[in-house]
């Protein structure tokens, strides 16, 4: 919808403008939910990796909720969780899921659609 409106305006946009329109506003709060199952080394690693990525790229505008399915198994169905660990980006929309321990930061950033802070600035 937006695109078609823009097309009618036929006003050229700079690369920076396009990037800003397509990506979440920089002041938006990121809601992330990490599903784990008990305190396994993989869960611990996933949380640590997530924490690091957020601190590096989303400092001050993120919330991480950790859901332990061992304690709340009924929550697995809500977000259609199969794999553990799974990171769900609740906000900003659209919903994204990343499975795995997030050890590959680049792929995690791509998955979360986070513009690396270093590149953005």
């Amino acid at each position, binding site marked *: 919808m937006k695109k078609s409106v823009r097309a009618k305006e036929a006003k050229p946009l700079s690369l920076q403008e396009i990037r800003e329109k397509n990506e979440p506003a920089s002041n938006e709060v990121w809601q992330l939910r990490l599903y784990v199952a008990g305190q396994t080394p993989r869960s611990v690693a*996933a949380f640590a990796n997530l924490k690091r990525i957020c601190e590096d790229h989303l400092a001050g505008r993120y919330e991480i909720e950790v859901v332990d399915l061992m304690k709340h198994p009924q929550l697995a169905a809500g977000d259609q969780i*199969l*794999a553990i*660990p799974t990171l769900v980006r609740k906000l900003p929309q659209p919903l994204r899921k990343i499975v*795995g*321990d997030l050890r590959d930061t680049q792929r995690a950033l791509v*998955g979360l659609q986070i513009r690396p802070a270093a590149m953005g600035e």
Partner: protein
Amino acid sequence: MSKTGIRKTKADQELGKENRRLPKAPTGIQGLDEITQGGFPRGRPTLICGSAGAGKTLLAMEFLIRGATEYNEPGVFMAFEETAPELTQNVRSLGFDLDELAKEKKLVIDFVRIERSEIDETGDYDLEGLFIRLGAALDAIGAKRVVLDTIENLFAGLQNEGILRAELRRLFRWLKDRGVSAVITAERGEGALTRHGLEEYVSDCVILLDHRVIDQVSTRRLRIVKYRGTAHGTNEYPFLIDEDGFSVLPVTSLGLQHEVSEERISTGVPRLDTMLSGKGFYRGTTILVSGTAGTGKTSLAASFVDAACRRGERCLYFSFEESPGQLIRNMRSIGLNLEQWTAKKLLQFHSSRASFYGLEMHLAIIHKIVQEFQPEVVVLDPVGSLIQAGNRRDAQTMMIRLIDFLKQRQITALLTNLTSGGQALERTDVEISSIVDTWLLMRDIELDGERNRALYVLKSRGMAHSNQLREFLLTPQGVDLLDVYVGPEGVLTGSSRLSQESREKAEALARRQEAERKDRDRMRKREALEARIVALRKEFEVEDAEAETASVEYGLREEMIAHNREAISRSRQADLVKDGVDGKRRKGAR
């Protein structure tokens, strides 16, 4: 309700028998428990594979539903393809109410959605989430059964196949450890049972469903590829999906152990009973009536049905050529009122074109109806047309299965078969002649510009049957059999028979008259002779009397002569005979 009750107790018995071997989880599906000897392996995973639309989901679902309703084993259905409302709707048309079962906590449907587009992968992971979900669902209702339909969808959603395979192996291990009877469905793969080689992990029981279309007729078949620890049937078994769900036809396993009856039942035609050593067919046997077109096969079948209903027995009439209405109308013309029996629910007609379904479907339908209606008599009219629904070999196997099935249930079956013109009469298209017990052959006899029907008993096992050919007559009062005349010109029927009859009558009359005439002649002769005897006797008497008179006269004359001589002598004073004369003189002097 009572039907399921019966099935349950039967399955329970089966289960009891099987318990000594491998524990089984009965599926409650008609026929499947028989060929698997009790059901799927209890506490182990079973793989059901087949191409799209083969009925995998339905089989799995029915396993759960029957488990929940009939065997008190709650179940979890983990759906990877369809959502719970979709599944509920799908099986509602088969008479299963999933909502109700869910409310009673007997069934849980868990829809697992995997959207690859919203999933990225980075680093290590496992499927603990799935395990937890499944575990939670199992615990929520104390499930004994699980269905994973179709777990292969995981391969579409997750990229790391190495992890996936390891996790699947763990999953099946975990299911075994939990002791749930699991059913896993999978798509048929190219050159392999499943697309992703699931058979590698699920090796206890593998069932293959197949849906083939041959000559535009589709047939569903089921085969047990393997079943550890059970001597299962290895054939392909036809199955069908209808308004009552899934049913497999295990009939090839019936064998020849059926009971036999000594009871005899009337054929509905008194003369035919006489031909079959006076009492008719044995109950529970199979009768084949074959003949060319228009020889009265259906009429004979209808007479048999009528007689059975008259005895109060239940009859099923499967017609592959005529509609019930047409049959009833046509049979009225030979004085059979079949409508009264349908009204009394003793008789049921089932008409369907042979080509309408595949053979297996026909067989399955017949099975089902027979099981529901519990008849004493079944008529299939005509069986030959079933070949149209399959090839000859299939038709023959099907007939054997069907006959075994009916015999097992002590049902007397009458099959009609049309022999096409130009063929030997003593063969049937379906080649079932060797497996029937009684074979009545109907033929037509063309003579003197007429076509008449004749019937004879080609064989009838276990009875001294007549070897005579009889004329088969359709009268407004029903079917009748008459003697036929066998003469130098062959067999006489119809008008020839009638003229022969009158000829014989005339001859008999002439013979009788001749005999009477001879009798009269004899009497006359006798009377004449007797009269002559009387006359002769009279004559004799007369002569006798005359003779006597003559004799007396002679005596008198002699005396007179002697007297006269004496008198003369005396007068002459002669003494010729002194003594005599003296005496006579003295005498005379006195």
